[in-house]
Each structure stands twice: as structure tokens, then as C-alpha cells.
């Protein structure tokens, strides 16, 4: 480990308000044991606040994807805690976990992961229906979400009738439909061209500005730059991060200007 690898700053970035939507406490994940033991994550400490988009960068094998999988409860930590909206997810049973995943966490994957047999609107409505919302209400919400993305015209299209960019935007809409406030995105711009990738990032950014918390793994600096904070991982540890100093003043100055 290089000596300048300053200990990661305290989890609070200061600017965003409220309590963290996601908190990783001393999170460790080890694969195998004995000689074959691999430390995928070593004591990760990270808090993500409402309104904040955090980008996680690092060379392959640095633990980026493991971090995201643990944060979403798709894998179990070797030690440490994942706390989502104040709840330690280890304390939830499988049922509670499933409910939390449905209600609090949205995922966006590189390959979109829309259900091919469902239309755009149905894909977005599905998690709500699973959660007991009426079909009618869920569809209404889905259409509203699509309208917000100016994607009304593809509401009844199936994934294979949409472009990659459209699929990914639908996936983001699905990830944040309902009251979910945490979106976890794994290389969301992976296969998209530069401008479409940007539209996807702009959408994630907007969602976070509206109060969601986002964590995005990416190896593309240009997309990471849309985040409030960039966290650098190396060999399973956070070695550095850019902080949000001045970001909000810059942004709000801009918004104020745009409003006049």
C-alpha cells in the first residue's frame, strides 16, 4: 500500500442533509480460506446520503462489484454491517430482506436486465405489483415515470424493440419507482455510446438531485465525473475519495441562474 493512501475521510461528506440511506460499516468480504483466501473487501467504511451520487472507481479486481453486491444484499459480508435506511440488513430474515430489496433498493445493471416478455411499462410496474400495489395503480405510476423521461411512446414496447439507451433508462425508472431511495448501478453505461451514456448519467443525476441516494460502479472517468463524490478502491480498500466541497454552491448558483 502506498504511504500517501490517506485514511478515508470520515463517512459524512457534510453537505447532504439527513441520515445516510446506505451505510457500510467495516465491511469485509473474504472468499476461500487458508492459502486460497482472497480479500475482496477490507474494512470498507462508506455512507451515502439522500441527494448524493457516489461513483466507485478502481482497477479490475479492486472490489468494486463486490461492494455493490454486498450493499444490495445480494451477497453476505464476512464481517461488518450494511445498513439501509437505518436497518442492519443482516438482522432481517430472508423475507424481510426480499421486502427491503423490493421497497428500498433499485438495481441497474450493465446489461439492463429488463424482463424480455414484459413491455417497458410492465417492467417498471412489476416491482410495485409484487409489493401489493394494484395493477392499475402500478401501471399509472409506470406511465408517469416514463412520461417524466419523455419515453411515453415506448411504454408498450418490449425490450428487444428498444435501443440500449432506452432500455437502460427504463431500467433506471424501474429501479426508482415507488418510494425507493437507493439505486445501485453497476457499469450502467457499459455498452452505450457516449451521448446515450451521458443521457443515462444525467437521469441518474436528476434522480439523486430529487433526493435518492446512488452508488455507481464505473471505470469511465467521464461518467464518474457526474457524481458528487468519487471513491477510489484498490485491493479491497478505499484509498482516496474526492469530496463535495463547493459542488453544491456551484450547482445551486447554476440553478438559480437558469431559473431567472
Amino acid at each position: 500500500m502506498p504511504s500517501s493512501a490517506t485514511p478515508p475521510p470520515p463517512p459524512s461528506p457534510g453537505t447532504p442533509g439527513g441520515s445516510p440511506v446506505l451505510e457500510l460499516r467495516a465491511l469485509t468480504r473474504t472468499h476461500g480460506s487458508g492459502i486460497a483466501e482472497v480479500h475482496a473487501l477490507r474494512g470498507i467504511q462508506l455512507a451515502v446520503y439522500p441527494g448524493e451520487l457516489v461513483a466507485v472507481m478502481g482497477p479490475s479486481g479492486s472490489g468494486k462489484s463486490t461492494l455493490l453486491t454486498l450493499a444490495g444484499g445480494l451477497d453476505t459480508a464476512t464481517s461488518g454491517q450494511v445498513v439501509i435506511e437505518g436497518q442492519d440488513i443482516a438482522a432481517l430474515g430472508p423475507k424481510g430482506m426480499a421486502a427491503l430489496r423490493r421497497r428500498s433498493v433499485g438495481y441497474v445493471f450493465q446489461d439492463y436486465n429488463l424482463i424480455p416478455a414484459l413491455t417497458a411499462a410492465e417492467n417498471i410496474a412489476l416491482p410495485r405489483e409484487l409489493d401489493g400495489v394494484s395493477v392499475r395503480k402500478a401501471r399509472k405510476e409506470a406511465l408517469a415515470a416514463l412520461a417524466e423521461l419523455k419515453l411515453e411512446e415506448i411504454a408498450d414496447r418490449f425490450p428487444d424493440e428498444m435501443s440500449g439507451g432506452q432500455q437502460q433508462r427504463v431500467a433506471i425508472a424501474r429501479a426508482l419507482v415507488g418510494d425507493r431511495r437507493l439505486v445501485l448501478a453497476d457499469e450502467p453505461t457499459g455498452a452505450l455510446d457516449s451521448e446515450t451514456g451521458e443521457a443515462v448519467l444525467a437521469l441518474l443525476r436528476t434522480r439523486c438531485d430529487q433526493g435518492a441516494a446512488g452508488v455507481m460502479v464505473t471505470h469511465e472517468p467521464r461518467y464518474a465525473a457526474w457524481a458528487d463524490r468519487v471513491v477510489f478502491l484498490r485491493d479491497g480498500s478505499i484509498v482516496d475519495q474526492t469530496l463535495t466541497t463547493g459542488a453544491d454552491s456551484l450547482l445551486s448558483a447554476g440553478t438559480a441562474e437558469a431559473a431567472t
Partner: protein
Amino acid sequence: MSIRHGLLALLERGPRYGSRLRTEFESRTGSTWPLNVGQVYTTLSRLERDGMIVQDGSDDAGHDLYTITDDGRAELRNWFETPVDRTSPPRDELAIKLAMAVGAPGVDIRDVIQSQRHHTLKAMQDYTRLKAQALADVPANRDEVAWLLVVEQLIFQAEAEARWLDHCESRLVRLAEAAATEPAADPGPAAARGPARTPAGRTRSKR
């Protein structure tokens, strides 16, 4: 950066006086490369000397107006048609710094890389915020479009640097691993020495 051609391009749109040229240049480029009035007037007098512009009358407020000549138009057209020369790149401090950091005593080159990466990403975050702000409303006039292009150029340039830094780091790691697996005569921290073992390293990396 060619102030000379920038001013000619602005003058092609009609006669202008010095401080207006300065304002227009800056609003096009978002004050990325601020000009002082002195630079504007020095450039104008050289352009006048070279027959590219003439001083021609003044406006109601008494500002001396400059007008582009046919020679100036030809020069400007030529500028647009000729690619910017990339064969003799300007000195790049970061490239020099990393080159010097290879094997430098007491310097961990990965630290140098990381602190630069931090700085570069931070700059990109700032540029991206400016860009998001510029995109919040569809750019309404050519100054806004021009500024968007300039800020995106800054982003792409910083991105190239960040990618290059990533590449340097993984290159050094790979070279260090290769050095470590060779029956080394001299055990010890290999990271900083990797690139110094050039014959083997270079042959491998070219394949």
C-alpha cells in the same frame, strides 16, 4: 492558442472595437482562456501591420473600429481548413513528472499517480457540473453552443489524462509482477524498478 485567429473570426462578423472583441472572445470560450485588453490591442496592431485588418472609423461612442480585409478573410479560411498541428506537442508537465518519478529515490510513483488522478477527477466533476448546468436549458445562441463545446473539450482532455493514469498504474503493476516472477538477482520492492528493466518489459508490452 491562437488569439490572432480568434479575433479574425469575430471580426468577420462585422467591424468591432477592442474591448468588445475581448468580451466576445470570452463569452465564446466561457472565459476559459481570459484575455487582457493589452493582449487584444497587441494582437490587433500585429494584424493591422500584416494587412489582415484595418482601423476604419469609429462608432457613436467614439470607439475605434477594426474591419477585416480580404487578406484577413483568406488567412481565416486557411486556419479553418488546416488541422491544428499535433506533431510537435507542447511540453506536458505531468508526463515529465511521471517520467522522472520512475525509479526516483523516495518517490512512490503510484502515489504520484493517485494524487494526480484525484485532482483530475475533481476537475472533471467541476467541469461536468458546469456542463450539466449548460445543458439544463437547450443552448439558445451560438455563444452558449460554443461554450458547451469548450467545456466538453476540457472534460474529454481530463478524461484522456485520467485514463492514461489508470493505464500507467496497471502497466507498472504488470511490469512489477513480471519482474517478481523472473529469477531476480536482487530481491526487493520491484514496483518502482519495473520500467527500468526495459529490455524484457518493452518486448513484452509491444506484443
